């Protein structure tokens, strides 16, 4: 069960031109998928841990995060 959940995300995209480095995604991701460097630039060192809770995508005030689900799951993001 766990493995199928973990594998629902194809990729996580961060639009660095829109991101204002507030750190909300880093702080609220339940699986600590994101990391920020000293200047606040966000990277995604652990995309495979993503459980597709969509919190980062929806909380992001800069609309800079896009979660790309795997095609078979695209109709059921819950």
């Amino acid at each position: 069960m766990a493995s199928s959940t973990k594998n629902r995300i194809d990729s996580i995209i961060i639009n660095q031109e829109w991101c204002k480095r507030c750190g909300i995604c880093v702080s609220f991701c339940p699986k600590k998928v994101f990391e920020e460097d000293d200047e606040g630039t966000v990277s995604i060192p652990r995309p495979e841990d993503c459980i597709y809770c969509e919190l980062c995508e929806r909380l992001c005030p800069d609309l800079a995060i896009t979660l790309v689900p795997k095609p078979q799951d695209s109709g059921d993001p819950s």
Partner: protein
Amino acid sequence: MSDTRVKKAGGKESGVNETGVKEAGVKEAAPQEIRTSPEGKPVEYYLRDRFMPHIWCGGCGHGTVLNGLIRSVDELGLKKREIVMVSGIGCSARMAGYLDFHTLHTLHGRALAFATGVKLSRPELTIICPLGDGDALAIGGNHFIHAARRNIDMTVLILNNRIYGMTGGQYSPLSGCGIDASTAPYSTIEDAFDTVTLATAAGATFVARTTSFHVHELQDTLTRAIRHKGLSVVEVLSQCPTHFGRKNGNLEAIQMLKDFRTGTARIGSRQLENNPGLIPRGIFVEKDKREYCDHYLDVIERARGKSGASR
């Protein structure tokens, strides 16, 4: 547009390339990825991305509300041309500029007056008004209560960050007592309006409150509010780290979001029962009442009938 975007994909193995993500500067970036149907990519579809990144400060809750609104409109399957967004002045009002609907950026506090005119002339359109706390309840207070009294079919979104952010952090009617602001260096001595009680008393037929932290609830609430026929008021507690946060305990956006999580509770929940000091969230009023445009169309028909009979 897509070629200017820098994308970083945390792909496993070949996942990055399979999604069609191109490097920055590559001209042929797949339009299919950016301009697909509203179901596929709501943010790209509904946003005027030529104006992005937006002017809101880093960590500002207004962006999260915009994010939720886009998803809600997408869920409702509304087309861009079916929506008119009417805003006033302030940080919140900038939302109208970023959305690719019919948009009106009007006078401070007067958005609801303009929106009333639009709705009466084109009742088939969906009207959404993003207002700030000062815009809606200080200079626009009268427009607000009378729009609620008329029960005209539109959605009033009150983005409550408890401060005038755009003009430099003056206190607003929703700041509350004991708040530091640029116009209250020794803290405010006024109580805040309770937006929910005010809207309910004024006659709004849908009244809700949520926060920029509760993003799924935000989307659901907005969807129900837009779907509701009559005046819908949704107060969204939103964080202003730049003006409110900095002057009141040096709060940053993350801490303010955590405060929304711990400082609010759903109406009817045990948590609220045990802690009555928490700010209640949820849908407080949802009732049917005859809508203003329907009344008005009746009047037109009656008037035409009379004048027709007299001829």
